[in-house]
């Protein structure tokens, strides 16, 4: 049940929205699909769900080509679109019954699935409201519920947490994590914490092209910058001496006796700093390694490809 994007290109008039894109979502894993706004994430997902056709290349879902097997693919795929379109005049259960019906669920099975999804997505407290009257967080839950009602093998979620408040984001994330066990998930976002919280693999695109891919840890280690240390001494340290330590490229004062050290790539000056402290008769109160965040890597990769 993998999703394989192969040499995918999509032209809108003369503009290339997606440019020769290839990657694969392995079965049973969650792939975070990252990129700045307008990078071509939604376009790729719309092609994968059969909503729009590719200009060149194609997407295989479970080995089936979207160009020829769109209907069969749509049966095993659950999709939450970016704008999360819903029928505001319908009640939640009515809407889920309608969506389930489109996947040819019926009778007791349909009733049971609607109940399960209402439970799982925490929609029970709002069941008497029409969808149009729900808050954004609840609408998003309804969107997720409709995407998952037919127990799809492949789930495609386009920015499932955009526009939600921090509590809702956490709730929706937990929900996705919970619901996507042993499913193949392609999830787009531009929020880095989301990727770290949810995804196993990452593909970063910019202007329709891949600028980075791999597991979250692999990507982090690909950074061009070295580590960043925050060091606190008992008294003011001597900058000139510290600068002489191999691998320290820049020093910034956070306060009188607390400094931020930027190191060159692949060098670890921590023991040298400890040595300096003992030689200078300073006590080392704290030493903290700031890991390269995915956010930095995202900026580096997308900026680089802009040039």
């Amino acid at each position, binding site marked *: 049940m993998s999703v394989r994007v192969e040499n995918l290109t999509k032209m809108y008039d003369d503009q290339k929205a997606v440019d020769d894109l290839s990657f694969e979502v392995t079965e049973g894993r969650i792939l975070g699909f990252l990129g700045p706004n307008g990078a071509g994430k939604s376009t790729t997902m*719309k092609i994968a*769900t*059969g*909503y*729009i*056709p590719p200009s060149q290349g194609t997407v295989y879902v479970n080995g089936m080509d979207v160009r020829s097997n769109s*209907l*069969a693919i*749509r*049966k095993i*795929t659950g*999709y939450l*679109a970016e*704008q999360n*379109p*819903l*029928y*505001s*005049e319908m009640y939640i259960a009515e809407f889920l019954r*309608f*969506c389930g*019906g*489109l*996947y*040819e669920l019926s009778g007791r099975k349909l009733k049971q699935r609607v109940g399960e999804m209402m439970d799982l997505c925490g929609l029970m407290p709002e069941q008497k409201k029409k969808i149009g009257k729900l808050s954004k967080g609840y609408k998003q839950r309804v969107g997720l519920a*409709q995407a998952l009602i037919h127990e799809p093998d492949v789930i495609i979620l386009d920015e499932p947490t955009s526009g939600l408040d921090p509590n809702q984001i956490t709730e929706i994330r937990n929900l996705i994590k919970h619901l996507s066990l042993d499913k193949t998930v392609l999830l787009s976002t531009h929020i880095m914490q989301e990727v770290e919280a949810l995804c196993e693999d990452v593909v970063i695109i910019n202007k329709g092209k891949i600028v980075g891919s791999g597991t979250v840890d692999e990507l982090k280690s690909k950074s061009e910058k070295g580590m960043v240390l925050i060091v606190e001494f008992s008294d003011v340290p001597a900058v000139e001496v510290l600068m002489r330590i191999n691998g320290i490229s820049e020093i910034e004062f956070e306060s009188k006796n607390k400094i931020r050290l930027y190191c060159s790539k692949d060098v670890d000056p921590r023991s040298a700093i400890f040595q300096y402290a003992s030689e200078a008769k300073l006590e080392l109160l704290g030493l903290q390694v700031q890991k390269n965040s995915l956010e930095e890597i995202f900026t580096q990769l997308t900026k680089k490809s802009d040039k």
Partner: protein
Amino acid sequence: MRRILAKELNAFFSSIAAYLVLGIFLVVTGLLMWVFPDTAVLSYGYADMSTLFTFGPYIFLFLVPAITMRLFAEENKGGTMELLLTKPLRDWDIIVGKYFAGIIIILVALIPTLIYYYSVYALGNPVGNIDSAGVTGSYIGLFLLAAVFCAAGLFASSLTENQILAFLLGAFLCFLIYAGFDGLSRMSLSGSAAYMMERIGILYHYEAMSKGLLDSRDIYYFVCTILLFLFLTKMKISSRKW
């Protein structure tokens, strides 16, 4: 297709607009048939129903686009076309489902007017002195005419996300095919052009049917016009793929 049909009927009959549309149709036809002295059967003195079949098309000219205007425009506006088109549905399932929903609503409006037929039938002297064949032909004609309007209205609705625009466009299309071509044919065109023009319009075929004469050519005309508009709608829906 069945699911879309059910959804549309559900949406229509759970809104006040449905009862308004059906109510207006029945009130207007009722007034024309029985109350207004210029058109009422009672003051006319002859047991026929030509009033209903003369004015019916003009009422449908407005009411059918009012029924069809939301069918696609609402989906376009709410972005729910994307929801439908990423479900395992063919484009045709959606179009035909919505079209049949429109047809069923038209039938629901038309069926109560059978009471008019029964009333005229019972009031005739002697009882039953009515051209039943003519009435049957006219009913089939009026239904087919409304079916064409429904297809035209559906197409108009697929073009826009604004329901008012969909209504106006639908009403204009219906007017054009009902009376427009006929009117144009009366202009000083050459004989064969006028002949062609007249036959493109609905009026010619509708009048032929009102005489109780069910000619297969007229039926073909209606079916082909309906298919034409449904194909145009399909083209519009598929245009996302261009």
